[in-house]
Protein backbone atom coordinates (compact mmCIF):
# COMPACT_ATOMS: atom_id res chain seq x y z
CA UNK A 1 0.00 0.00 0.00
CA UNK A 2 1.40 3.40 -0.94
CA UNK A 3 1.75 5.87 1.89
CA UNK A 4 -0.38 8.99 1.73
CA UNK A 5 1.55 12.20 1.19
CA UNK A 6 2.26 14.20 4.35
CA UNK A 7 0.43 17.15 2.83
CA UNK A 8 -2.09 16.99 0.04
CA UNK A 9 -4.38 19.68 -1.28
CA UNK A 10 -6.90 19.60 -4.07
CA UNK A 11 -7.95 22.86 -5.70
CA UNK A 12 -7.39 24.67 -2.43
CA UNK A 13 -8.31 28.35 -2.72
CA UNK A 14 -8.46 31.30 -0.41
CA UNK A 15 -10.05 34.63 -1.15
CA UNK A 16 -9.73 37.80 0.89
CA UNK A 17 -12.68 39.78 -0.37
CA UNK A 18 -11.94 40.14 -4.08
CA UNK A 19 -8.30 39.16 -3.78
CA UNK A 20 -7.39 35.58 -4.43
CA UNK A 21 -4.48 34.70 -2.17
CA UNK A 22 -4.31 31.01 -3.07
CA UNK A 23 -5.65 29.74 -6.35
CA UNK A 24 -6.74 26.12 -6.84
CA UNK A 25 -3.60 24.77 -5.28
CA UNK A 26 -2.83 21.11 -5.87
CA UNK A 27 0.03 20.37 -3.57
CA UNK A 28 1.52 17.05 -2.67
CA UNK A 29 4.35 16.83 -0.17
CA UNK A 30 5.91 13.40 0.12
CA UNK A 31 6.81 11.93 3.48
CA UNK A 32 10.33 11.65 4.86
CA UNK A 33 11.66 14.39 2.67
CA UNK A 34 12.61 18.02 2.99
CA UNK A 35 10.43 20.14 0.76
CA UNK A 36 11.15 23.80 0.21
CA UNK A 37 8.21 26.10 -0.36
CA UNK A 38 9.31 29.09 -2.38
CA UNK A 39 7.61 32.19 -3.61
CA UNK A 40 7.77 35.94 -3.54
CA UNK A 41 6.32 38.01 -0.73
CA UNK A 42 2.54 37.77 -0.97
CA UNK A 43 2.66 34.67 -3.16
CA UNK A 44 0.40 32.84 -0.72
CA UNK A 45 2.88 30.68 1.18
CA UNK A 46 1.88 31.73 4.70
CA UNK A 47 -1.82 31.64 3.82
CA UNK A 48 -1.38 28.09 2.54
CA UNK A 49 0.45 27.04 5.70
CA UNK A 50 -2.21 28.64 7.90
CA UNK A 51 -4.96 26.80 6.02
CA UNK A 52 -3.07 23.54 6.48
CA UNK A 53 -2.89 24.15 10.22
CA UNK A 54 -6.54 25.15 10.62
CA UNK A 55 -5.83 28.80 11.41
CA UNK A 56 -7.70 29.87 8.30
CA UNK A 57 -10.60 28.29 6.49
CA UNK A 58 -10.22 27.55 2.78
CA UNK A 59 -12.72 29.38 0.58
CA UNK A 60 -12.93 26.27 -1.58
CA UNK A 61 -11.10 23.05 -2.20
CA UNK A 62 -9.84 20.56 0.30
CA UNK A 63 -6.70 19.34 1.89
CA UNK A 64 -5.24 16.91 4.33
CA UNK A 65 -2.20 16.83 6.56
CA UNK A 66 -0.96 13.41 7.67
CA UNK A 67 -4.26 12.04 6.42
CA UNK A 68 -6.38 14.39 8.56
CA UNK A 69 -8.77 16.81 6.92
CA UNK A 70 -7.70 20.40 7.41
CA UNK A 71 -11.22 21.82 7.59
CA UNK A 72 -12.45 19.45 10.28
CA UNK A 73 -11.73 21.00 13.71
CA UNK A 74 -11.42 17.71 15.59
CA UNK A 75 -9.20 16.13 12.93
CA UNK A 76 -7.16 19.31 12.91
CA UNK A 77 -6.50 18.98 16.66
CA UNK A 78 -5.45 15.36 16.18
CA UNK A 79 -3.20 16.40 13.31
CA UNK A 80 -1.53 19.10 15.41
CA UNK A 81 -0.43 16.45 17.92
CA UNK A 82 1.91 15.17 15.20
CA UNK A 83 2.90 18.44 13.60
CA UNK A 84 5.32 21.09 14.80
CA UNK A 85 5.08 24.57 13.39
CA UNK A 86 7.45 27.49 13.61
CA UNK A 87 5.78 30.65 12.42
CA UNK A 88 7.37 33.46 10.50
CA UNK A 89 7.61 35.95 13.36
CA UNK A 90 8.30 33.29 16.03
CA UNK A 91 6.71 35.32 18.81
CA UNK A 92 6.08 33.39 21.99
CA UNK A 93 4.57 34.18 25.38
CA UNK A 94 6.59 37.08 26.74
CA UNK A 95 5.22 36.62 30.25
CA UNK A 96 6.71 33.14 30.63
CA UNK A 97 10.32 32.27 31.31
CA UNK A 98 12.15 30.00 28.89
CA UNK A 99 11.82 27.13 31.36
CA UNK A 100 8.10 27.72 31.92
CA UNK A 101 7.44 27.81 28.18
CA UNK A 102 9.35 24.57 27.65
CA UNK A 103 7.39 22.83 30.45
CA UNK A 104 4.13 24.22 29.11
CA UNK A 105 4.80 23.05 25.55
CA UNK A 106 6.16 19.67 26.62
CA UNK A 107 2.92 18.91 28.46
CA UNK A 108 1.03 18.59 25.16
CA UNK A 109 3.34 16.02 23.61
CA UNK A 110 3.78 12.58 25.16
CA UNK A 111 6.80 11.95 22.91
CA UNK A 112 8.64 15.03 24.14
CA UNK A 113 12.36 14.34 23.99
CA UNK A 114 14.04 15.67 27.10
CA UNK A 115 17.49 14.77 25.76
CA UNK A 116 16.89 16.86 22.62
CA UNK A 117 15.55 19.68 24.80
CA UNK A 118 18.65 19.62 27.03
CA UNK A 119 21.05 19.36 24.09
CA UNK A 120 19.46 22.30 22.30
CA UNK A 121 19.25 24.37 25.47
CA UNK A 122 23.01 23.98 25.83
CA UNK A 123 23.76 24.39 22.14
CA UNK A 124 21.62 27.51 21.74
CA UNK A 125 22.74 28.88 25.13
CA UNK A 126 19.19 29.69 26.15
CA UNK A 127 18.83 31.05 29.69
CA UNK A 128 16.12 28.94 31.33
CA UNK A 129 15.11 31.49 33.95
CA UNK A 130 14.96 34.51 31.64
CA UNK A 131 11.58 35.89 30.58
CA UNK A 132 10.84 35.24 26.92
CA UNK A 133 10.14 38.94 26.37
CA UNK A 134 13.74 39.69 27.36
CA UNK A 135 15.22 37.43 24.68
CA UNK A 136 16.82 38.77 21.52
CA UNK A 137 15.26 38.03 18.12
CA UNK A 138 17.79 35.33 17.44
CA UNK A 139 17.13 33.73 20.83
CA UNK A 140 13.39 33.83 20.11
CA UNK A 141 14.01 31.92 16.90
CA UNK A 142 16.23 29.39 18.67
CA UNK A 143 13.65 28.83 21.39
CA UNK A 144 10.89 28.36 18.79
CA UNK A 145 13.07 25.82 17.00
CA UNK A 146 13.83 23.97 20.25
CA UNK A 147 10.10 23.73 21.01
CA UNK A 148 9.49 22.31 17.54
CA UNK A 149 12.43 19.92 17.41
CA UNK A 150 11.98 18.40 20.87
CA UNK A 151 8.40 17.29 20.34
CA UNK A 152 9.43 14.61 17.82
CA UNK A 153 6.93 15.60 15.15
CA UNK A 154 5.98 13.52 12.15
CA UNK A 155 5.78 16.71 10.15
CA UNK A 156 7.68 19.92 10.76
CA UNK A 157 6.36 23.04 9.08
CA UNK A 158 8.55 26.10 9.17
CA UNK A 159 7.79 29.54 7.81
CA UNK A 160 11.00 31.46 7.15
CA UNK A 161 12.87 29.56 9.87
CA UNK A 162 16.23 31.28 9.58
CA UNK A 163 14.95 34.82 10.23
CA UNK A 164 16.97 36.40 13.03
CA UNK A 165 19.65 33.71 13.07
CA UNK A 166 23.35 34.44 12.60
CA UNK A 167 25.34 32.31 10.11
CA UNK A 168 26.25 29.82 12.82
CA UNK A 169 22.61 29.55 13.83
CA UNK A 170 21.55 29.02 10.21
CA UNK A 171 24.13 26.28 9.87
CA UNK A 172 22.86 24.57 13.02
CA UNK A 173 19.29 24.90 11.81
CA UNK A 174 20.05 23.30 8.46
CA UNK A 175 21.96 20.48 10.12
CA UNK A 176 19.02 20.02 12.49
CA UNK A 177 16.57 19.76 9.60
CA UNK A 178 18.65 17.15 7.81
CA UNK A 179 19.07 15.20 11.03
CA UNK A 180 15.33 15.31 11.80
CA UNK A 181 14.48 14.17 8.30
CA UNK A 182 16.93 11.28 8.67
CA UNK A 183 14.99 10.23 11.77
CA UNK A 184 11.72 10.11 9.84
CA UNK A 185 10.32 13.62 10.13
CA UNK A 186 8.91 15.21 7.01
CA UNK A 187 10.06 18.82 6.72
CA UNK A 188 8.11 21.46 4.81
CA UNK A 189 9.58 24.91 4.95
CA UNK A 190 9.02 28.20 3.23
CA UNK A 191 11.96 30.47 2.71
CA UNK A 192 13.34 33.36 0.72
CA UNK A 193 16.85 32.10 1.34
CA UNK A 194 17.29 30.04 -1.80
CA UNK A 195 20.84 28.87 -1.01
CA UNK A 196 19.52 27.38 2.25
CA UNK A 197 16.73 25.58 0.44
CA UNK A 198 19.12 24.37 -2.22
CA UNK A 199 21.44 22.96 0.42
CA UNK A 200 18.97 20.82 2.30
CA UNK A 201 15.78 20.36 0.29
CA UNK A 202 14.98 17.25 -1.73
CA UNK A 203 12.09 18.88 -3.47
CA UNK A 204 10.79 22.40 -4.11
CA UNK A 205 7.35 23.80 -4.74
CA UNK A 206 7.18 27.33 -6.13
CA UNK A 207 4.14 29.48 -5.64
CA UNK A 208 3.41 32.61 -7.65
CA UNK A 209 0.25 34.69 -7.26
CA UNK A 210 -1.28 31.85 -5.27
CA UNK A 211 -0.67 29.27 -8.00
CA UNK A 212 1.72 26.37 -7.94
CA UNK A 213 4.08 27.08 -10.82
CA UNK A 214 6.76 24.48 -10.15
CA UNK A 215 6.88 21.20 -8.30
CA UNK A 216 10.21 19.62 -8.90
CA UNK A 217 12.94 17.67 -7.16
CA UNK A 218 16.36 19.17 -6.63
CA UNK A 219 17.91 16.11 -8.29
CA UNK A 220 15.87 16.79 -11.39
CA UNK A 221 17.05 20.39 -11.41
CA UNK A 222 20.66 19.31 -11.04
CA UNK A 223 20.38 16.66 -13.74
CA UNK A 224 18.12 18.22 -16.33
CA UNK A 225 17.79 21.97 -15.90
CA UNK A 226 20.23 23.80 -18.12
CA UNK A 227 20.81 27.17 -19.69
CA UNK A 228 21.94 26.83 -23.29
CA UNK A 229 23.56 29.85 -24.90
CA UNK A 230 23.66 29.59 -28.67
CA UNK A 231 25.43 32.10 -30.90
CA UNK A 232 24.42 32.03 -34.57
CA UNK A 233 26.45 33.48 -37.47
CA UNK A 234 23.38 35.40 -38.55
CA UNK A 235 20.64 37.29 -36.68
CA UNK A 236 17.63 35.00 -36.58
CA UNK A 237 14.51 36.68 -37.94
CA UNK A 238 11.11 35.81 -36.44
CA UNK A 239 12.90 33.20 -34.40
CA UNK A 240 10.63 30.62 -32.83
CA UNK A 241 11.65 27.56 -30.92
CA UNK A 242 9.14 24.82 -30.43
CA UNK A 243 11.09 22.05 -28.86
CA UNK A 244 10.26 19.69 -26.04
CA UNK A 245 12.05 20.66 -22.84
CA UNK A 246 12.49 24.34 -23.69
CA UNK A 247 10.73 26.42 -21.10
CA UNK A 248 11.90 29.87 -22.09
CA UNK A 249 13.74 31.57 -24.95
CA UNK A 250 15.51 34.93 -24.88
CA UNK A 251 16.91 36.40 -28.09
CA UNK A 252 19.50 39.17 -28.21
CA UNK A 253 20.83 39.81 -31.66
CA UNK A 254 22.74 36.73 -32.79
CA UNK A 255 22.63 35.21 -29.36
CA UNK A 256 19.79 32.97 -28.21
CA UNK A 257 19.44 31.82 -24.62
CA UNK A 258 17.34 28.74 -23.99
CA UNK A 259 16.18 27.45 -20.64
CA UNK A 260 15.80 23.70 -20.78
CA UNK A 261 14.19 21.29 -18.39
CA UNK A 262 15.17 18.18 -20.36
CA UNK A 263 15.78 16.81 -23.87
CA UNK A 264 19.20 18.45 -23.82
CA UNK A 265 20.67 16.38 -26.63
CA UNK A 266 17.80 17.18 -28.97
CA UNK A 267 18.11 20.88 -28.23
CA UNK A 268 21.86 20.91 -28.81
CA UNK A 269 21.42 18.95 -32.07
CA UNK A 270 18.79 21.43 -33.16
CA UNK A 271 21.21 24.32 -32.50
CA UNK A 272 23.93 22.56 -34.48
CA UNK A 273 21.56 22.06 -37.39
CA UNK A 274 21.38 25.86 -37.67
CA UNK A 275 25.18 25.98 -37.83
CA UNK A 276 25.51 27.72 -34.49
CA UNK A 277 28.96 29.19 -34.07
CA UNK A 278 29.00 28.54 -30.33
CA UNK A 279 26.92 26.39 -28.00
CA UNK A 280 27.44 26.71 -24.29
CA UNK A 281 25.50 24.50 -21.84
CA UNK A 282 25.59 25.49 -18.17
CA UNK A 283 23.73 23.93 -15.25
CA UNK A 284 20.99 26.00 -13.65
CA UNK A 285 20.91 26.59 -9.92
CA UNK A 286 17.72 26.79 -7.89
CA UNK A 287 18.02 30.57 -7.83
CA UNK A 288 17.92 30.80 -11.63
CA UNK A 289 15.11 28.24 -11.82
CA UNK A 290 13.14 30.22 -9.27
CA UNK A 291 13.67 33.54 -11.01
CA UNK A 292 12.87 32.15 -14.46
CA UNK A 293 9.80 30.36 -13.17
CA UNK A 294 8.23 33.37 -11.52
CA UNK A 295 9.13 35.67 -14.40
CA UNK A 296 7.34 33.53 -16.94
Amino acid at each position, binding site marked *: MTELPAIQTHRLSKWYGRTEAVRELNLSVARNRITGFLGRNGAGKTTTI*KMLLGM*MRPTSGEGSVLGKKIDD*PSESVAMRREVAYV*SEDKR*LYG*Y*MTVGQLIR*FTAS*FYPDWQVDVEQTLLKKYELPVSRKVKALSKGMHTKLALLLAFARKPKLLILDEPSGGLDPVGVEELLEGLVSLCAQGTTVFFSSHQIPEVERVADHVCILEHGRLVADVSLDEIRQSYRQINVVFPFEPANFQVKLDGVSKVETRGRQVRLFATGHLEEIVNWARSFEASAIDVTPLGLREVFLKTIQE
Partner: protein
Amino acid sequence: MLWYKAWLETRARFLAALGAILLLSSFQVLRGNGEADRHLLSLSWHYEVLHRAHSSLAMLWVLAVSLLMMGGLIREMAVGASDFTLALPVSRAQLMRVRIGMGFLQAITLAVAAWIVMFLLANLGGDARSLENAGWHLLLLVVGGSVFVSWALLVSTLIPGEYTAPAVCLGVVLLVVIVLGDPPLNQWSPSSLLTGNEYLNRRTMMLGGPIPWVRLTATVAMAALMAIGAVKVMQRREF
Protein backbone atom coordinates in the same frame (compact mmCIF):
# COMPACT_ATOMS: atom_id res chain seq x y z
CA MET B 1 -1.26 23.27 31.47
CA LEU B 2 -3.64 25.66 29.72
CA TRP B 3 -4.72 26.75 33.20
CA TYR B 4 -1.09 27.38 34.04
CA LYS B 5 -0.77 29.55 30.93
CA ALA B 6 -3.99 31.42 31.72
CA TRP B 7 -2.74 32.04 35.25
CA LEU B 8 0.70 33.29 34.14
CA GLU B 9 -0.93 35.49 31.51
CA THR B 10 -3.21 37.23 34.00
CA ARG B 11 -1.17 36.91 37.19
CA ALA B 12 0.26 40.43 37.23
CA ARG B 13 -3.10 42.03 36.45
CA PHE B 14 -4.88 39.85 38.98
CA LEU B 15 -2.45 40.60 41.80
CA ALA B 16 -2.57 44.31 41.03
CA ALA B 17 -6.38 44.20 41.03
CA LEU B 18 -6.43 42.20 44.26
CA GLY B 19 -4.08 44.67 45.92
CA ALA B 20 -6.13 47.67 44.80
CA ILE B 21 -9.42 46.08 45.84
CA LEU B 22 -8.15 45.03 49.26
CA LEU B 23 -6.62 48.43 49.82
CA LEU B 24 -9.78 50.30 48.92
CA SER B 25 -12.07 47.96 50.86
CA SER B 26 -9.88 48.07 53.95
CA PHE B 27 -9.62 51.83 53.76
CA GLN B 28 -13.39 52.23 53.50
CA VAL B 29 -14.10 49.96 56.47
CA LEU B 30 -11.29 51.33 58.64
CA ARG B 31 -12.48 54.87 57.96
CA GLY B 32 -16.00 53.77 58.94
CA ASN B 33 -14.62 52.19 62.11
CA GLY B 34 -12.90 55.48 62.90
CA GLU B 35 -16.17 57.35 62.59
CA ALA B 36 -18.06 54.88 64.79
CA ASP B 37 -17.81 57.14 67.86
CA ARG B 38 -19.97 59.75 66.14
CA HIS B 39 -22.66 57.14 65.45
CA LEU B 40 -22.97 55.61 68.90
CA LEU B 41 -26.72 55.62 68.73
CA SER B 42 -26.83 53.73 65.46
CA LEU B 43 -26.70 50.00 66.12
CA SER B 44 -26.46 49.35 62.41
CA TRP B 45 -23.50 51.66 61.73
CA HIS B 46 -21.02 48.91 60.87
CA TYR B 47 -23.52 47.31 58.50
CA GLU B 48 -23.91 50.67 56.85
CA VAL B 49 -20.14 50.91 56.54
CA LEU B 50 -20.03 47.46 54.99
CA HIS B 51 -22.77 48.32 52.52
CA ARG B 52 -21.06 51.54 51.47
CA ALA B 53 -17.76 49.72 51.10
CA HIS B 54 -19.55 47.11 49.02
CA SER B 55 -20.84 49.80 46.64
CA SER B 56 -17.29 51.07 46.09
CA LEU B 57 -16.05 47.51 45.83
CA ALA B 58 -18.63 46.76 43.13
CA MET B 59 -17.36 49.62 40.96
CA LEU B 60 -13.72 48.65 41.34
CA TRP B 61 -14.58 44.97 40.85
CA VAL B 62 -16.29 45.69 37.52
CA LEU B 63 -13.25 47.69 36.42
CA ALA B 64 -10.91 44.90 37.56
CA VAL B 65 -12.77 42.03 35.89
CA SER B 66 -13.10 44.04 32.68
CA LEU B 67 -9.34 44.45 32.55
CA LEU B 68 -8.70 40.86 33.64
CA MET B 69 -10.82 39.47 30.82
CA MET B 70 -8.85 41.36 28.20
CA GLY B 71 -6.30 39.17 26.47
CA GLY B 72 -6.59 35.78 24.87
CA LEU B 73 -6.07 34.97 21.22
CA ILE B 74 -6.94 38.38 19.81
CA ARG B 75 -4.34 40.07 21.97
CA GLU B 76 -1.89 37.29 21.16
CA MET B 77 -2.57 37.96 17.49
CA ALA B 78 -1.64 41.61 18.04
CA VAL B 79 1.68 40.64 19.62
CA GLY B 80 2.30 37.78 17.20
CA ALA B 81 2.01 34.85 19.62
CA SER B 82 -1.35 33.49 18.40
CA ASP B 83 0.30 31.23 15.80
CA PHE B 84 2.09 29.37 18.56
CA THR B 85 -1.12 28.87 20.56
CA LEU B 86 -3.15 27.82 17.54
CA ALA B 87 -0.54 25.26 16.53
CA LEU B 88 -0.95 23.46 19.87
CA PRO B 89 -3.10 20.33 19.84
CA VAL B 90 -6.06 21.97 21.56
CA SER B 91 -9.33 23.24 20.18
CA ARG B 92 -10.26 26.89 20.30
CA ALA B 93 -13.28 25.97 22.42
CA GLN B 94 -10.93 24.40 24.95
CA LEU B 95 -8.78 27.53 25.00
CA MET B 96 -11.87 29.64 25.56
CA ARG B 97 -13.25 27.37 28.29
CA VAL B 98 -10.03 27.71 30.26
CA ARG B 99 -10.02 31.47 29.78
CA ILE B 100 -13.61 31.74 30.92
CA GLY B 101 -12.93 29.45 33.88
CA MET B 102 -9.87 31.40 34.95
CA GLY B 103 -11.71 34.71 34.51
CA PHE B 104 -14.62 33.65 36.70
CA LEU B 105 -12.32 32.10 39.31
CA GLN B 106 -10.36 35.32 39.57
CA ALA B 107 -13.53 37.40 39.67
CA ILE B 108 -14.93 35.27 42.49
CA THR B 109 -11.61 35.35 44.35
CA LEU B 110 -11.50 39.15 44.17
CA ALA B 111 -15.02 39.43 45.56
CA VAL B 112 -14.57 36.83 48.31
CA ALA B 113 -11.15 38.12 49.40
CA ALA B 114 -12.46 41.68 49.60
CA TRP B 115 -15.48 40.60 51.64
CA ILE B 116 -13.42 38.48 54.04
CA VAL B 117 -11.15 41.45 54.74
CA MET B 118 -14.09 43.87 55.05
CA PHE B 119 -15.99 41.51 57.34
CA LEU B 120 -13.01 40.96 59.64
CA LEU B 121 -12.11 44.63 59.81
CA ALA B 122 -15.71 45.68 60.47
CA ASN B 123 -15.91 43.21 63.33
CA LEU B 124 -12.61 44.40 64.74
CA GLY B 125 -14.08 47.85 65.16
CA GLY B 126 -17.62 46.90 65.99
CA ASP B 127 -20.37 44.37 65.58
CA ALA B 128 -21.45 43.28 62.10
CA ARG B 129 -21.43 39.53 62.40
CA SER B 130 -24.26 38.61 60.06
CA LEU B 131 -22.90 36.07 57.61
CA GLU B 132 -26.23 36.16 55.82
CA ASN B 133 -25.72 39.83 55.03
CA ALA B 134 -22.21 39.14 53.75
CA GLY B 135 -23.48 36.20 51.70
CA TRP B 136 -26.23 38.32 50.17
CA HIS B 137 -23.75 40.97 49.09
CA LEU B 138 -21.37 38.40 47.69
CA LEU B 139 -24.13 36.58 45.82
CA LEU B 140 -25.29 39.79 44.17
CA LEU B 141 -21.76 40.85 43.33
CA VAL B 142 -20.60 37.57 41.83
CA VAL B 143 -23.79 36.35 40.16
CA GLY B 144 -25.00 39.80 39.14
CA GLY B 145 -21.49 40.71 38.04
CA SER B 146 -21.13 37.65 35.83
CA VAL B 147 -22.70 39.66 33.03
CA PHE B 148 -19.78 42.12 33.19
CA VAL B 149 -17.25 39.28 33.08
CA SER B 150 -18.90 37.81 29.98
CA TRP B 151 -19.30 41.21 28.38
CA ALA B 152 -15.56 41.89 28.76
CA LEU B 153 -14.84 38.44 27.34
CA LEU B 154 -17.07 39.07 24.33
CA VAL B 155 -15.51 42.47 23.64
CA SER B 156 -12.02 40.98 23.88
CA THR B 157 -12.92 38.46 21.16
CA LEU B 158 -14.48 41.05 18.88
CA ILE B 159 -12.21 44.06 19.17
CA PRO B 160 -8.46 43.90 18.65
CA GLY B 161 -6.13 46.45 20.18
CA GLU B 162 -4.58 46.63 23.60
CA TYR B 163 -6.36 49.86 24.50
CA THR B 164 -9.37 49.88 22.18
CA ALA B 165 -10.97 46.76 23.64
CA PRO B 166 -10.91 47.86 27.31
CA ALA B 167 -11.97 51.37 26.30
CA VAL B 168 -15.00 50.04 24.40
CA CYS B 169 -15.81 47.56 27.16
CA LEU B 170 -15.74 50.12 29.96
CA GLY B 171 -17.37 52.79 27.80
CA VAL B 172 -20.40 50.58 27.22
CA VAL B 173 -20.53 49.62 30.91
CA LEU B 174 -20.54 53.30 31.85
CA LEU B 175 -23.25 54.01 29.29
CA VAL B 176 -25.42 51.20 30.66
CA VAL B 177 -24.93 52.44 34.23
CA ILE B 178 -25.97 55.98 33.23
CA VAL B 179 -28.88 55.06 30.95
CA LEU B 180 -30.33 52.48 33.33
CA GLY B 181 -29.47 54.47 36.44
CA ASP B 182 -32.91 55.89 37.33
CA PRO B 183 -36.33 54.31 37.92
CA PRO B 184 -38.11 52.61 36.29
CA LEU B 185 -35.24 51.50 34.04
CA ASN B 186 -32.98 50.71 36.97
CA GLN B 187 -34.79 47.42 37.53
CA TRP B 188 -33.00 46.26 34.34
CA SER B 189 -29.67 47.65 35.38
CA PRO B 190 -27.02 45.05 36.17
CA SER B 191 -25.12 47.63 38.19
CA SER B 192 -28.04 48.25 40.58
CA LEU B 193 -28.28 44.49 41.08
CA LEU B 194 -24.61 44.42 41.92
CA THR B 195 -24.77 47.04 44.65
CA GLY B 196 -27.95 45.57 46.13
CA ASN B 197 -29.42 48.98 47.00
CA GLU B 198 -32.90 47.76 46.13
CA TYR B 199 -32.74 45.00 48.72
CA LEU B 200 -31.32 47.14 51.49
CA ASN B 201 -33.32 47.36 54.71
CA ARG B 202 -32.82 51.03 55.65
CA ARG B 203 -33.41 50.30 59.32
CA THR B 204 -30.90 47.47 59.78
CA MET B 205 -28.71 48.48 56.84
CA MET B 206 -28.55 44.82 55.90
CA LEU B 207 -29.71 43.15 52.73
CA GLY B 208 -32.81 41.06 53.17
CA GLY B 209 -36.01 39.81 51.72
CA PRO B 210 -36.46 37.02 49.21
CA ILE B 211 -33.46 36.38 46.97
CA PRO B 212 -34.26 37.73 43.45
CA TRP B 213 -33.82 34.39 41.75
CA VAL B 214 -35.59 35.42 38.55
CA ARG B 215 -33.38 38.45 38.10
CA LEU B 216 -30.25 36.53 39.01
CA THR B 217 -31.16 33.70 36.67
CA ALA B 218 -31.82 36.16 33.85
CA THR B 219 -28.43 37.77 34.50
CA VAL B 220 -26.64 34.42 34.48
CA ALA B 221 -28.48 33.44 31.29
CA MET B 222 -27.37 36.67 29.63
CA ALA B 223 -23.81 36.10 30.82
CA ALA B 224 -23.91 32.53 29.50
CA LEU B 225 -25.22 33.72 26.13
CA MET B 226 -22.43 36.25 25.82
CA ALA B 227 -19.82 33.66 26.80
CA ILE B 228 -21.19 31.18 24.25
CA GLY B 229 -21.20 33.98 21.68
CA ALA B 230 -17.56 34.71 22.46
CA VAL B 231 -16.64 31.04 21.98
CA LYS B 232 -18.51 30.92 18.66
CA VAL B 233 -16.81 34.10 17.46
CA MET B 234 -13.45 32.64 18.34
CA GLN B 235 -14.18 29.34 16.63
CA ARG B 236 -15.03 31.11 13.39
CA ARG B 237 -12.28 33.69 13.51
CA GLU B 238 -9.36 33.46 11.11
CA PHE B 239 -5.81 34.15 12.23
